[in-house]
């Protein structure tokens, strides 16, 4: 929890986001994405993306948030609008003629909806990751009935990745010192993959053996034993209303979807 000091200087919205229950935040992020997915057309996704941008700006994270959102959103929109707009099977109304193909309105809308929905998930997860540590989230989910094994899998995976990246960097230096060629043609670069990855895998397997012995001596496999954590899970009075609001949005989207389906408007 090295960000305790930062928290006091952070904008009020950021502090508020941090004070929310991590499980509730995950649920709200998922529900917002589902609402955008179910709602007919890209409108709701667009609105939610704007709301998420506003929240990120209020929490003082606009720069990194925009970088993540545009980094995915721009290339995905370009390529999907191209594919769906020109070659989508649902195209009936054409809004522009480019000579080699015509741009269809339905395809463009479908493409925008897909990208928008993914952006809602992306933005929701980004804000959640920013304001809750994975260990806090897992502690919360375990309290709510997630099995400790599943919790271990998630946390250990999260921890193991940076550790392995560091190990790989060390091995890269060692192998370069031995004269391993990391540049050059594709074949020689491919050949370098094995000396880099091999030692990482081997040492990780040894590591796994130690971990499993440690876990067994700690009685991790015992059934019925209570697993405790040092993580204090935050709860806030705003948790329940937020989840309720997100659920309402999903219900409204389902209603909107059914209404348009009955009104014979195909998407």
């Amino acid at each position: 929890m090295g960000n305790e000091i930062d928290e006091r200087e952070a904008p009020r919205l950021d502090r508020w986001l941090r004070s929310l229950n991590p499980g509730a935040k995950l649920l709200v992020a998922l529900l917002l994405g589902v609402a955008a997915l179910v709602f007919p057309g890209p409108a709701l996704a667009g609105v939610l993306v704007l709301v998420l941008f506003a929240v990120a700006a209020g929490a003082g994270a606009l720069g990194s948030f925009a970088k993540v959102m545009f980094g995915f959103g721009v290339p995905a929109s370009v390529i999907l609008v191209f594919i769906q707009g020109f070659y989508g099977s649902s195209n009936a109304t054409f809004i522009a003629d480019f000579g080699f193909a015509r741009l269809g309105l339905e395809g463009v809308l479908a493409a925008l909806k897909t990208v928008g929905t993914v952006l809602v998930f992306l933005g929701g997860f980004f804000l959640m990751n920013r304001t809750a540590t994975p260990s806090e989230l897992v502690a919360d989910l375990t309290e709510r009935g997630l099995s400790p094994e599943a919790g271990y899998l998630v946390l250990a995976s999260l921890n193991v990745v940076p550790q392995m990246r560091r190990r790989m960097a060390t091995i890269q230096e060692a192998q370069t010192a031995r004269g391993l060629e990391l540049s050059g043609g594709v074949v020689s670069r491919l050949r370098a993959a094995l000396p880099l990855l091999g030692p990482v895998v081997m040492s990780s397997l040894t590591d796994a053996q130690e971990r499993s012995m440690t876990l067994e001596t700690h009685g991790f496999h015992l059934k019925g034993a209570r697993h405790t954590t040092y993580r204090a899970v935050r709860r806030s009075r705003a948790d329940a209303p937020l989840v309720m609001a997100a659920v309402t949005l999903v219900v409204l989207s389902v209603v909107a979807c059914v209404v348009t389906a009955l009104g014979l408007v195909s998407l």
Partner: protein
Amino acid sequence: MSGEKRGGGGLKSQFTTKSLVLIPIAVGINLVGGTLCSMLKLPLFLDTIGTLIVATLSGPWVAALTGLITNVFLAIVANPVNLPYAVVSVLVGLTAGYLAKAGLFNKIWGVVVIWLAVTLVNSVSASLITTFVFGGATGINGTSVLTAALIVAMQDVLVSVLSSSFIESLIDKGISVLIAYLIWRKIPRRFISQYASDGADDDDDDVDDVDDEA
């Protein structure tokens, strides 16, 4: 995340503490494949090496769970686009796991069979998701550009996605399977025997085979 729980609960016998500890390591190997590619500037993913190694060590369901967690991890940390592709990773884990259980990872022709099977499973399932969930492309890698070019030439989204996905996985899975195989050959045999699950009694014979060859 309920999927993980169900996977762990329904097939408890395969999920010993040893396998449980192996899964995060394998997830790490999967994810470090991306680091490796950027280190060597290779236009590949190599994100199934861990799944393949676990498939040979602990069997199909542990490999499937490894694939699932890899994608859940990528979805939450990197990009939610990865979440639907968890199905692909699970299928790849199962395919490789059952083929490895049948002893195919011990013969050169068997490795080729695994390569082709994994390529086929991967490209078909991934194409279906790309086409029907995302409408043709996700824009997060170079394959999308290839797909777009093929669509211009062939005028059909599914066929184009399938072709570009097949070409991409033929190369990517080929190298992944080869690396996994070479690493697996180097893992000390004594190490492998401890992970063999209940259903994999014949693994002992396979291990002897390799020792004889080596």
